[in-house]
């Protein structure tokens, strides 16, 4: 696995703050959190009208290749490029995953 850089962590924390508000500032962004983010993206079919879930080359089966820096950065670029409405749409779907994110950020 290519280590998640501080810049990447800050970018994902920023995306998650759109979905979960400022509480995410204290979240530790790790692989478990990114996998959960992928699960949220992929469970929310009804939000896909705002944008495609993630660039195709970085999805194997149904799983995003979060261990790859190239994949992470492609998703960051993808979401920064007009993903705000998409992330807002994810708020309702994300409601049931908030506890899971809190657990994941603690490595649970």
């Amino acid at each position, binding site marked *: 696995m290519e280590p998640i850089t501080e810049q990447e962590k800050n970018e994902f924390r920023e995306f998650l703050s759109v979905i979960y*508000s400022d*509480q995410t500032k*204290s979240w530790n962004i790790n692989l478990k959190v990114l996998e959960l983010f992928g*699960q*949220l993206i992929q*469970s*929310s*079919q*009804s*939000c896909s009208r705002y944008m495609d879930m993630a660039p195709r080359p970085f999805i194997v089966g149904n799983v995003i290749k979060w261990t790859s820096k190239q994949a992470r950065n492609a998703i960051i670029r993808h979401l920064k490029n007009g993903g705000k409405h998409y992330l*807002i*749409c*994810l*708020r*309702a*779907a*994300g*409601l*049931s*995953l*908030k*506890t*899971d994110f*809190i*657990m994941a950020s*603690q490595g*649970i």
Partner: protein
Amino acid sequence: MIITKRICILLALVVALSGCQNVGPENTNILLGSGDRQELILNGRVSLPIPTRYDKIWLSKSSIIISQSDVSIGYRWIDKEEIEFIGSIKSPYDFFKGAFNSPSIDEEKRFIEGLGNIETYSYASANNLEFYHFDLVDKQKIYILSDSLDFAIEVTSKGGSKKYLENITQNSYIR
């Protein structure tokens, strides 16, 4: 208000970690321990049984996680502000009731979508509380509602026993 709640919860943890002493009825937002029955009291209103054994407790703004080895139970309370944040003007009770019974607005539909694959689902009511229990792929969730509460409770169990979840359904109550 939030600060008061946090102080009360912190007090709860101090009591819990110092051996789960009994406390008087004047202390309403705290964790009570008495032998083999321990209670987590959320917002001074709802009492839930907690596992009798645990070695770590995590506290955050609106949740408590209690864990022991590979078992983790997360307790989270969801208020109207959080429901408004996701885009619904309903009360927490009406939002979840609508989502679980006949989702009609987009936010309710998306919330159900976000639960992912539901393996089994059941409903129960006891002590003026309604329990919506979901068996999901890697965890179980119980949503606890009452029309007399201005918040809902979500219990997330990872690795927890079925018996403990039944205990929640049977022995939670409004204070």
